[in-house]
C-alpha cells in the first residue's frame, strides 16, 4: 500500500480514501461516540483493519473504530521527517581506536515522540549524541555490515563479519565492538571464536535486553562497558559483554565459546556455563576473574578461517523421539548432527538403527548434554557405551550450540571423520575445558533460607 495510507487496509483504508484523508493529516473525526481531533498515524501492519490511529494533542494515541465514524475532515497536514543530528565524535591521540561493526541490533537510538518510531543511532556522531561518555573512552569509528535481526544471522554473516574483523586487525585497530541482537549472540560469538583465530586484540560482542529508547535501557551502559573493554582490556579473545547483575553496576566478559543466553528477558541474561567469566567490567575498571586468557599483542597478525558447512543440524532429544527424524536428516544429505541428549548424553533405543545407518552413510554425530552444565560421560551407563559403539562421539562439555557451530566450521574444512574428530575434540578458545571448577555451576535456588539471606545481602 502506498505511503500515504501506511499500514491501513480493508475497511479502514476504504474509509480514509472515501474522506480523502491521509496519514499525517491533522483530522477532526465525528463518531457515534463523540468527536476526536488529532493527527492520523500510520497503523501497524499486524493490527486489525477496523481502526484508525490518532495522536491526540496531549501526546496520547487512541484508536477509533471505523464503524463508529460518521465524518472525517482534514484540517492540516504535517508529515514527519527525521534526521538524527550528528555531533562530531571527538578524537584524541591519547585514546585507543575502536571499531564498531553493526549487524542490525539497535544499541543506541533516538525516539520520535510524534510517531513513536525508534530511530537507530549508529554513526560515531549519532552515538556520541546518545552516549556522550563514549568520547572519554576511545576514538570510535563505525561500519554497518548488515541490518538483520539476530535470528536471521547465519553462516553468510559470520563469514563476512570474520573477514571484516581480520581486515580491521591488519589495519591496526586497537579493539573491535560488534553490535548484535541478543537472541543468537552466543552463536555468533562461537562462530567468531572459531573463524578468527589468535586475534591480537579484544573482540567484544554487545547488545541490549531493554530497548534503547527507554530511560532504564541497558544499552548505553553495555556499550560503555564494551568500548572500554575493546579499548583498554588486556584480553585478546572473542567475548560477550553484557550485564552481570540486573542492576546498573557492572558487566561480565564471557568467553565466546562458553556463553549462553539464559533468560528470555532479564538484563543479566548471559551466563558463562560450566566455568566462570573472564572478567568484570565497570565504567571505572576491568577486573579479571581468571588469568588464563590470551593477552593483547602489538602485532597485527590473525588467522581468519571463514568457512562453514551448512548441512549440520542440532537436535534436542526428547523421550519417545522417533528415528524418522535422524533418517530424514541422513536422506537429506546432512553431514553432521549434534544431539543434545539427556543426562550424561543419552537417547532411546529405537533411535539406534537410524543412528547406525547415518554413521554408515558418513554422517558424523556428536553428543552434548541438555543439562548444559557438565560433561557427556557416555561410559557410565550401557546406553552411553552402546551409542559410542554405534559411532556417536561425546563432545565433552561443549555447549550444544557451540558444538553445532564448531561442527559446521570443521566440516567446512574437512570431510574426513578422523580429522573432524580430532578437530572437534581439540579445545579451541575454551570450548572444552579440561576440568570444571566448583564455582562453574551455581544456580541459586530462591526460597531456601540461606539463599534468601544471600540474595538479600547483594545486589541482583
Amino acid at each position, binding site marked *: 500500500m502506498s505511503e500515504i495510507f501506511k499500514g491501513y487496509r480493508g475497511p479502514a483504508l476504504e474509509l480514509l480514501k472515501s474522506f480523502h484523508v491521509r496519514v499525517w493529516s491533522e483530522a477532526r473525526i465525528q*463518531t457515534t*461516540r*463523540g*468527536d*476526536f481531533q488529532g493527527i492520523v498515524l500510520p497503523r501497524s501492519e*499486524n*493490527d*486489525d483493519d*477496523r*481502526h*484508525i*490511529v490518532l495522536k*491526540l*494533542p*496531549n*501526546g*496520547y*494515541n*487512541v*484508536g*477509533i*473504530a471505523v464503524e*463508529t465514524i460518521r465524518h472525517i475532515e482534514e484540517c492540516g497536514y504535517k508529515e*514527519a521527517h527525521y534526521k*538524527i*543530528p550528528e555531533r562530531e565524535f571527538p578524537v584524541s591521540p591519547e585514546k585507543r581506536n575502536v571499531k564498531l561493526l553493526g549487524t542490525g541490533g539497535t544499541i543506541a*537510538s*533516538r*525516539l*520520535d*515522540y*510524534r510517531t*513513536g518510531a525508534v*530511530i537507530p543511532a549508529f554513526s560515531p556522531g549519532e552515538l556520541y*549524541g*546518545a552516549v556522550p561518555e563514549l568520547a572519554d573512552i576511545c576514538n570510535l569509528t563505525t561500519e554497518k555490515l548488515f541490518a538483520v535481526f539476530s535470528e536471521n544471522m547465519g553462516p553468510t554473516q559470520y563469514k563476512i563479519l570474520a573477514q571484516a574483523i581480520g581486515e580491521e586487525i591488519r589495519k591496526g585497530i586497537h579493539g573491535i565492538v560488534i553490535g548484535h541482537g541478543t537472541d543468537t549472540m552466543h552463536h555468533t560469538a562461537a562462530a567468531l571464536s572459531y573463524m578468527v583465530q589468535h586475534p591480537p586484540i579484544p573482540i567484544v560482542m554487545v547488545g541490549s*535486553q*531493554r*530497548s*534503547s*529508547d*527507554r*530511560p*532504564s*535501557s541497558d544499552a*548505553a551502559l553495555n556499550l560503555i562497558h564494551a568500548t572500554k573493554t575493546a579499548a583498554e582490556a588486556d584480553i585478546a579473545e572473542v567475548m560477550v559483554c553484557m550485564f552481570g*547483575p*540486573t*542492576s*546498573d*553496576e557492572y558487566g561480565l566478559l564471557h568467553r565466546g565459546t562458553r556463553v549462553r543466553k539464559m*533468560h528470555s*528477558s*532479564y*538484563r543479566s541474561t548471559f551466563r558463562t556455563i560450566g566455568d566462570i567469566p573472564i572478567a568484570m567490567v565497570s565504567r571505572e575498571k576491568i577486573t579479571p576473574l581468571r588469568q588464563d586468557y590470551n593477552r593483547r599483542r602489538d602485532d597485527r597478525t590473525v588467522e581468519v578461517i571463514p568457512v562453514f558447512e551448512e548441512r549440520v543440524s542440532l537436535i534436542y532429544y526428547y523421550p519417545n523421539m522417533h528415528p524418522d527424524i535422524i533418517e530424514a536428516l541422513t536422506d537429506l544429505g546432512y553431514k553432521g548432527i549434534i544431539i543434545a541428549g539427556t543426562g550424561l548424553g543419552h537417547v532411546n533405543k529405537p533411535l539406534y538403527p537410524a543412528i547406525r545407518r547415518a554413521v554408515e552413510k558418513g554422517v558424523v554425530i556428536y553428543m552434548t548434554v541438555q543439562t548444559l552444565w557438565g560433561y557427556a560421560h557416555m561410559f557410565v551407563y550401557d546406553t552411553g557405551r552402546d551409542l559410542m559403539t554405534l559411532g556417536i562421539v561425546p563432545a565433552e562439555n561443549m555447549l550444544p550450540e557451540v558444538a553445532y557451530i564448531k561442527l559446521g566450521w570443521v566440516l567446512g574444512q574437512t570431510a574426513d571423520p578422523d580429522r573432524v574428530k580430532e578437530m572437534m575434540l581439540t579445545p579451541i578458545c575454551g570450548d572444552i575445558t579440561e576440568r570444571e571448577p566448583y564455582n562453574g555451576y551455581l544456580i541459586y535456588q530462591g526460597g531456601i533460607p540461606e539463599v*534468601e539471606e544471600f*540474595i*538479600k545481602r547483594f*545486589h*541482583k
Partner: protein
Amino acid sequence: MKIVPSDLDPQRNFEETRQRVGYTPRQETPAEVYQQLGFICGLEVHQQLQTAKKLFCRCPAGIYQPDGYYDAELIRHMRPTLSELGEYDGTALMEFKTRKTVIYHIDNRTACTYDVDDTPPFKLNPEALEIALEIALLLQTTIVGELHITRKQYLDGSIPTGFQRTAIVGIEGRLPLPHKTVRVIQLSVEEDACREVSDVGHVRVYTTDRLGMPLVETVTYPDMQTPDEVAEAAHSIRFLTRSTGKVRTGIGAAREDVNVSIRGGTRVEIKGVPRIRYIPELVHNEAFRQKSLLVICEELLARMPAGAPGWQMRHVALDTDPPMVTSALARQAWEKGDCLVAVNLPGFRGILSFFTQPGRSFADEISDRLKVIACIEKPNMAHSEAFRPAEQGEDFEAIRRLLGAREEDAQILLWGPVGDIPTALETVEERCRLAFLGVPNETRKAFPDGTTMFERVLPGPDRMYPDTDSAPIAITEEMIERARRRLPPRVDRRLAQLREWNVPEDAFAYLLRHNLVPLVERIASELRFAPRFVALFLAHRLKHLQGRLRPDGPLDVGRIYGLLAFIRERGLEPEIAFEMLAPAYEHPDADLEAVLSSIGYVPRSRDDIIARISVLREEFARRNTSRDAGAGRRWIMGRLRPLALGNMPMAEVAAAIRAGESL
C-alpha cells in the same frame, strides 16, 4: 536603576514585600481577589482500582510491605532519551544532572520481574479496564474505539522502566458541581508508581509494592476559579469514583495533582496531595507565590532592563579556612570537608528576602533547587538576607568585599561535596535568570502546612510514545453496553435521592465518600427501615464511633445490614440499633445475641412498661417539689428508657407519660 534601601532589614523587607504582593490568609481572602489574580486551576485525580492483581503483571495488588522490609534490592540509573530534535527535555536534563542512583526494595510477594523491567508486560488486566470504563461513562466522556498503551517518561526513578504505561479510555467529559459544570479532558487507566522511601544526596530509595497497581487518572480543564471550588471538584470526583464500589480507599489510594496558574504566571503542578482538605490552602499559596514571582520579575527588570541575557553572577571558592564562615551550619559543612563557595548576585538586594509563601522567601526557591538538582542536602546555603537565625552568622561584609560586590547586590554562601559544586552553581544561576522571566514551569511537592517546594521541572508534552510491547485493545459497543448496565446512579442523582429522603445535608459527604447510599437503599427496601433513619444511623452514629473506637477487625457493610436484619427478625424497636452498634462495631465477629445482652436488654411487654409510670410519678412527687412538669417527665423517662429500649418506641413512652398526667 531603582533605589534600593541601603540598610536592608530582611525581616522587614519580607513583611513589606508580602504586603506589596497583597498576600492575605485564605480565610480573609474574598473570591474577587482570585478573579483579579486571574486564578485558574485544574485537577488530575489518581484513584487506585480495587482489583485483585496489578495492571500489567499477575502480582497481587494492595499489599504493602512494612517499612524497612524487603527481600532484595537492585540499582538503576535513568538516562534521558533524546527527542527528534536531538534536544533533551528540560526535566530529562535536570534528572540526568542529578546523577541519582535509584535503589529498589523488592518484596517477592508483591513484585515480579515485570515490576523491575526485566520482563515485558503481560496483557492489561481486564478487571481494571472494566472499572475504568464505568468511571469513564460516569464522567460522560467519549469512549475511544481502541485502547493504545502509551509510555509516559519519568526519569525520577519512580518507575523502574523510566516510563509509566498509560492509556486513554475516554476524552471530553463533564463533572457537574452544584453551581457549575467542570469539563473533563480525559480519563486514563495506568499503572501506579513506586513509593519513595528516602532521597538523600545522590541516592533515592523506592519500594515496589505499590508499583504497577491499576489506577485511573481523571484530568479536568482549568475550570475552577477559587480554592474552595477546587476542593469541591476533588470531592465530587472522589464521590463519583467511589460510587462504583470498585476503587480502593485509605491513605494514598486517591491522590490529587493540582495545576495552578494566575494571569501572567505559568502552569505549576502541585504533586501528590494526599488529602483533599489540604488543597485550598496549597492553591491559595501557590497563586500568591506566582504573584510574588511576577512582582520580583517586574522589580528585576526595572533595575536591570537588559534582563537575564545581560545578567552574570560571580563566585569565589573559599579554599583556605575563611574567617567569615562563622555560622554553626557553615562551620559544620567546612569541617565535614564540603566545598564552600561565595556567590554574588548582582542587583538582587532585597530579592532573597522577598516574600514568596508564608514563612518562605525567594532564597528558598534557590535552596530547594540546590537540594533537588545538585543533590545537596539542606541546609545547603546561607545568604545576605537571612532572617531565620540558623542561617545567620556569616560575615557577609567580608564576603561582599571578597566578591567585590556593590551595594545593590545580594550574596549566597553555598556548600556541598566538591563534585556537586558545578551543578550547584549552574542551578543558582539558572534560577536567578528565570526570575527575570516570571514563574518557571515546575512541579512542586505539597506540605501539610499549605506551602510547597520545588520538585522538578515540569515535563513537556514530548515524553509520550507508544508502548511497542503491547497490542491495542478494541473497546467494542458490547463492552460499553455491559459497563453501562453496571453503572451506579450518578452522584447528582444520589444527592437528589438523599434530599427526597429528607436526610440532612451534613450527612451527605460521609455517605457519598464511603459509598453508603446503596446500603441505605437496600436496607430501606429489604428490611423496611426508613431511609432517613438508616442514613443518620450511619452518618451520625457510625461516624461518631469510628472516630472513637478501635475495632478488632475491618468493618464491612454486611455487619451493618446484619445488625438491622437481626433487629427486624427479633421484632425489636429500631432505636436499639444505636445502642447495639458500639459493641457490634468494636467486635465485628461477636454474635449479635451476645451484643444484645451486653447492652442489658431484657424483653418487656408494653403494658409492663406503661404500668410503671404511675409508680414512678408517685416516687418523683415524694422526692421532688419542683413545679416544672417537664422535670418530672424527664426523670420518669430516664428511668424507663433502659427498660423500653428495643421493646417500645421512645416517642410512645413519652406520649404515655404525658397521657398519664391528665388522668
